[in-house]
């Protein structure tokens, strides 16, 4: 009866020790599941711990309470798209893909063609535009034939046209290699344009205040539809906000 699940996240708490020695809770009671080929957007205010969440899932940080359980695979392949492209500047665009996707040259070349990077395959990252570098970072994440793609505000600091093009590039890659994807963003438009499901987070500590499943006919239905959808998502978030600006489920409920 239950839908297939690739990843189960149940983080009961994650805190950092500040300079004064006091522990500060950044994530609390984050619980969700991810199905194969599902794109889930996690939307929260800047600095609410979204990047921390990705680091925990990526296995870069093990210091938390709770559990992160993978189904159907012990050693998941995770392709991450960071906020900045983080390409190796001294390796060509193509090498940046093939170095992490060892033995998957054919897939790398396919993605380079599909994402319009083929003419730049032998260029070094400092020689291409930031938009192209971000494309290459997306291609790299998909080039490892991932079980999960993590995206950390992948279109931050791009102008609206470039952002839209970036989303198209991401969906191109995803349609070619459908995979589970978790995208964290502060931008509701990202969520509306890309996601099957949206998790709305509160600030300090971050916890899920609402979960919105997007009806199938409204998913990835183009910029116009996404715009309308983003509006209704913003309303859904506003409904969670109490008078005085506090978001229910954060300080109010503790």
């Amino acid at each position, binding site marked *: 009866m239950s839908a297939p699940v690739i990843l189960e996240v149940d983080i009961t708490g994650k805190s950092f020790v500040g300079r004064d020695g006091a522990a500060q809770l950044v994530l609390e009671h984050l619980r969700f599941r991810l199905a194969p080929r599902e794109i889930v957007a996690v939307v929260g205010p800047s600095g609410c711990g979204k990047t921390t969440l990705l680091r925990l899932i990526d296995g*870069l940080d093990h210091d938390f309470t709770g559990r992160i359980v993978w189904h159907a695979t012990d050693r998941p392949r995770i392709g*991450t798209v*960071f906020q900045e492209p*983080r390409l*190796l*500047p001294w*390796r060509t665009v193509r090498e940046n893909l093939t*170095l992490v996707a060892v033995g998957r040259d054919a897939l790398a070349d396919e993605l380079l063609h599909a994402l319009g990077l083929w003419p730049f395959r032998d260029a070094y990252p400092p020689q291409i535009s930031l938009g192209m570098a971000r494309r290459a970072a997306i291609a*790299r994440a998909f080039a490892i034939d991932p079980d999960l793609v993590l995206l950390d505000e992948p279109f931050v600091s791009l102008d609206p046209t470039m952002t839209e093009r970036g989303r198209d590039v991401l969906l191109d890659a995803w349609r070619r290699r459908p995979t589970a994807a978790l995208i964290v963003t502060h931008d509701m438009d990202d969520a509306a344009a890309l996601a099957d499901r949206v998790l709305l987070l509160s600030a300090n500590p971050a916890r899920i205040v609402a979960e919105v499943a997007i009806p199938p006919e409204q998913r990835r239905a183009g910029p116009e539809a996404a715009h309308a959808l983003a509006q209704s998502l913003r309303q859904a978030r506003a409904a969670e906000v109490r008078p005085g600006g506090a978001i229910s489920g954060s300080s109010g409920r503790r």
Partner: protein
Amino acid sequence: MLPAASTVAAAMLHEAVAGPLLVNLGITLARVVAAFTVAMVLGTALGIAMGAWRRLDLALDSWVTVLLNLPALVVIVLMYVWFGLNEWAAIGAVALNKLPSTAVTLREGARALDRGLAEMAESFRMGRWARLRHVVLPQLAPYLFAAARSGLAIIWKIVLVVELLGRSNGVGFQIESYFQLFDVTGILAYTLAFILVVQAIEWVLLQPLERRANRWRR
């Protein structure tokens, strides 16, 4: 006082053809290469380790500073006293003179490593060797070249002192014998020969390698 350049060049050619210049040059060069390799490899490893691990850095920092400031002559004499007038002591003394400055340079490089790229490599599960080769070493390249340049310069100077004090061959030994004869032309002939060799290393080895390492910069 100072012989004409042409006289020195002629003396150098004569020494090369009829004298022991090439043999001595070869011996000195072999010592330079050996000491350079030891100092660069150990110094680089030590520097990276000190840059990466704060505890190690704290433990060794004052030793490195002491060694960095110890006069070359003291190290050479002590090595000869402790280990005898042999090749190992000679090369070890030279390497020990250069090692701390290589370590200090590479420590700076290791501290400046890009954390974002390290995290990327970890996230994509790059292997240890791949990380070193494709992520770490390219970032250390400018530091390695800086250490190599200054290393070559210092090492060949110290090798000559080591030869003068405790070896019976090499350019340093030859210069000492010309010194006893007050033969300035002979001294300059050997000096010129070595300067040519060092320049050749710069042009044939260091500069092409550096161009290769920097080809991604626009």
